[in-house]
């Protein structure tokens, strides 16, 4: 018991490894939001008219909306007028042409995070479109991708170089009026990634973006759009870390995926934003709208996420299964430790015939953390022969935390088969005893059991992420035995 106590104390005191602030001069728009600010953002980014209009339309609609209050999370009201909606590294004026021209301090930041951009990118064969606060500063492996015809660039670039694609697909999966945070994002989004994979192309490498929130008081509003044209295949990796800071920071991103006939998109996330300190002070508010649409027949969208960070997570990567025989998958590990709150899950909307979906969700609660799975499986009358399997399991480490499950299951098609299973328990004494008896330390035993608990999800991650995720889990839950 004494060792457990000590381990728990250690756990509680564990500091956020990635907590530091890089001191780079930033260009700010003063805090506050009105139509002028939106015009200014749009102008600064040199956007065409249709984008400005689109932003304004979203803003006007946002004004009529209320913050959602149905999620199982508690936080102080956000003052949207106190947020600065635009920050760009100063060096943006004369944008870097290659890595050598990138602000060395910026590169240092990535080094501290353990992701030496150029090295890592080359070694791992990963093209990285690194987003530093709001403006993309370095993009690698462009040529190789260009050879295959894959467009992988920052959203700002895409708006300028491929306006027709942006215009066609932007907001087609997550419309600007979708929800409060998506509307806000549509109005003020700063930058993000854009991917287009042409017909029949298998993207030659895993695409990856590392996000960082750096400047104080700056909400980060990412917008990602991935379009996989007929018969193409792409795997996209997203990883997040954020520096230590006492104020809560808002992160309201939108990710849209479009899979046309026979296309496949795999989207993997390791989210490790700053979760706040052990008293629950600070930390990121992560209010994200992620949705993919399997528009064509035989298409597939797969979401895999490992959520260990953020003070509050509000995130439901979803699939709209429109095309016949299309497939949606959602694999998730979510951890809520200390005072973290997570309300996460997915929506699977079955529209086309013989559509299939799988949901595997693993929630881990520790400390005072509150972890909720919220999911929707909806089978429409048109989805003949649809199939869903859902499994959501929760693991409780400690008696002050909470684990909740809120699944909504709606079926209006008799030939559809829907199955849902959920369990909640703590690590059993028997399992622990068994491991201890075979000479494992308590901590190793817990790590092993937790990793076993998450295995089904980890095995869906790309290899380099799987290792990272496993280590992250071990560190996050060091010694947290209930």
């Amino acid at each position, binding site marked *: 018991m004494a060792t457990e106590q000590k381990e728990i104390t250690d756990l509680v005191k564990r500091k956020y490894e990635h907590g530091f602030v890089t001191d780079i001069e930033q260009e700010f728009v003063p805090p506050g939001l009105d139509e002028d600010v939106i015009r200014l953002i749009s102008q600064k980014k040199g956007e065409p008219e249709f984008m400005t209009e689109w932003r304004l339309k979203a803003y006007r609609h946002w004004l009529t909306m209320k913050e959602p209050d149905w999620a199982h999370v508690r936080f102080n009201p956000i003052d949207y007028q106190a947020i600065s909606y635009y920050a760009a590294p100063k060096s943006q004026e004369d944008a870097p042409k290659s890595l050598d021209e990138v602000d060395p301090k910026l590169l240092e930041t990535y080094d501290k995070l353990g992701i030496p951009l150029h090295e890592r990118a080359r070694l791992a064969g990963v093209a990285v479109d690194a987003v530093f606060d709001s403006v993309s500063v370095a993009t690698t492996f462009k040529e190789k991708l260009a050879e295959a015809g894959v467009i992988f660039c920052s959203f700002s670039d895409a708006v300028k170089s491929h306006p027709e694609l942006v215009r066609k697909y932007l907001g087609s999966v997550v419309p600007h009026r979708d929800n409060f945070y998506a509307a806000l994002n549509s109005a003020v989004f700063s930058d993000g990634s854009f991917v287009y994979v042409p017909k029949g192309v298998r993207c030659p490498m895993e695409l990856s973006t590392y996000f960082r929130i750096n400047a104080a008081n700056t909400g980060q509003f990412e917008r990602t759009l991935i379009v996989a044209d007929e018969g193409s295949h792409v795997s996209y990796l997203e990883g997040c870390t954020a520096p230590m800071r006492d104020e809560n920071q808002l992160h309201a991103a939108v990710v849209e995926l479009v899979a046309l006939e026979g296309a496949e998109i795999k989207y993997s996330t390791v989210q490790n934003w700053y979760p706040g300190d052990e008293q629950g002070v600070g930390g990121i508010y992560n209010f994200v709208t992620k949705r993919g649409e399997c528009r064509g027949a035989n298409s597939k969208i797969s979401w895999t996420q490992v959520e260990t960070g953020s003070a509050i997570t509000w995130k439901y990567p979803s699939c709209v299964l429109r095309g016949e025989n299309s497939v949606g998958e959602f694999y998730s590990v979510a951890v809520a430790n200390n005072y973290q709150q997570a309300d996460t899950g997915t929506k699977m909307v079955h529209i086309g015939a013989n559509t299939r979906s799988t949901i595997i969700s693993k929630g881990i609660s520790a400390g005072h953390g509150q972890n909720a799975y919220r999911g929707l499986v909806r089978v429409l009358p048109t989805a003949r022969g649809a199939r869903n399997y859902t499994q959501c399991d929760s693991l409780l*480490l400690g*008696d002050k*935390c909470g684990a909740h499950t809120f699944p*909504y299951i709606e079926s209006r098609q008799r030939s559809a088969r*829907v199955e849902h299973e959920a*369990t909640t328990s703590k690590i059993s004494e028997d399992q622990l005893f068994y491991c201890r008896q075979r000479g494992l330390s308590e901590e190793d035993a817990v790590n092993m059991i937790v990793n076993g608990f998450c295995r089904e999800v980890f095995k869906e991650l790309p290899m380099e992420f799987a290792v990272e995720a496993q280590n992250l889990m071990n560190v996050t839950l060091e010694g947290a035995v*209930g």
Partner: protein
Amino acid sequence: MNTEALSRQFAAELDRLPRSAEAAARRAAAFEAFSAAGFPTRRDEQWRYTDLKPISTAELDFAPPPPSTELVSRVAESLDQAGFDEATSRLVFIDGCYCDTLSRTTAAAGISLASLASCSEADLPVHAHAPFDGHPLATLNAAFARDGALIAAEDGARTTAPIELVFVAGGRSGLAAHPRIVIDLGQGAEVTLIQHLLDLEPGRGWFNAVTEIVQAPGSHLTLYRLQDHGTRQFHTALMRAELAEDAKLNCGYFDLGGRLVRNDFDVRLAGPGAEADLNGLFLASSGQHTDNHIRMDHIAPRTRSAESFRGIIGDRGHGVFNGKVVVHRDAQHIDARQSSDNLLLADNAEIDTKPELEIYADDVKCSHGATIGELDDDQLFYLRARGLADEEARNLLTFAFANTVLERVALPELRELVAARVAARLPNGATAGGTR
């Protein structure tokens, strides 16, 4: 029914009931609480899948006139025909009004059985006046309830045969009844109770009941309800139970009829070792809508609960299940299971199910499962290969699906009755092979 009309009815009703000033004030407070919010709408998360408009827009008389002697004798006849035994302890209500001549209030030693209206206010258990936060329809019941049943068991008392509560809709359309059932079990008492709900003739009315249960330590309540209304009745009911240490509650709810049915269950396992088992079966077809809403609070440690609901949804039927298990902080060693299994028999059938868990303690074993599907092709093939007609095979499998719940009924006679009623309501019921 607009608020004005409702207010008028309430004012008239308040004058009519001979009750103390406190009771009148309580009713007025309840009515005010209801009118402040009005009927819940689908914007309300608790009513997401159930639209009360058919009830809220219907013209209903909230003060049904007492049944005529002619109606009473017709009910008596029909009960005899249906095989009800006059010798059992029973309370009979017609359109919500207590019917003395058809009831028999003598019961086993230590068990009292009475119509609520006949009890002096001082005799009523305190909880009979409890408010109903979060249950708007129960609040409406609190305002309008004029009668109901009181079943009280002294410490250690036991029923030798099940007590029956029979609620008959007399076929007069447009009546709204708000009966209240109060069940109070002393320490170690054991009571078995069967509620029958039926229509003398098909009619459209609203039955809005509240059942309040308080169980002292070690008591054991078995409660069955066979809701066998016609397919035009509206039926809403709240069952609220509070269980002390080692008390056990065992429920079987069978909803076969009703146009719009909503059952709320609110069970609080307040004493260590308390246990609750809720079993339910519903049939919904021909535009029927049936909604079972459960909240199971594990407040004390070492409590156990199990919920198992099965739905058979046919042509234009709509089934809803919402089960919520809440494990409170420091309520350790909890075992909670929940299952919702649903069979869709028609193309335009719909089921919405939402099994929820909210857990604030760590030493728990909680699980839930939900399934939705149609009859299994392989099983059908198996039966067809053995010479059963398609319809027969379907009915046999459908009945087998229902039988899982029926098998849990401990009283053989009741089990047979429910089985027969289920079989009769299946799409080709009369020919069902499963009636035994």
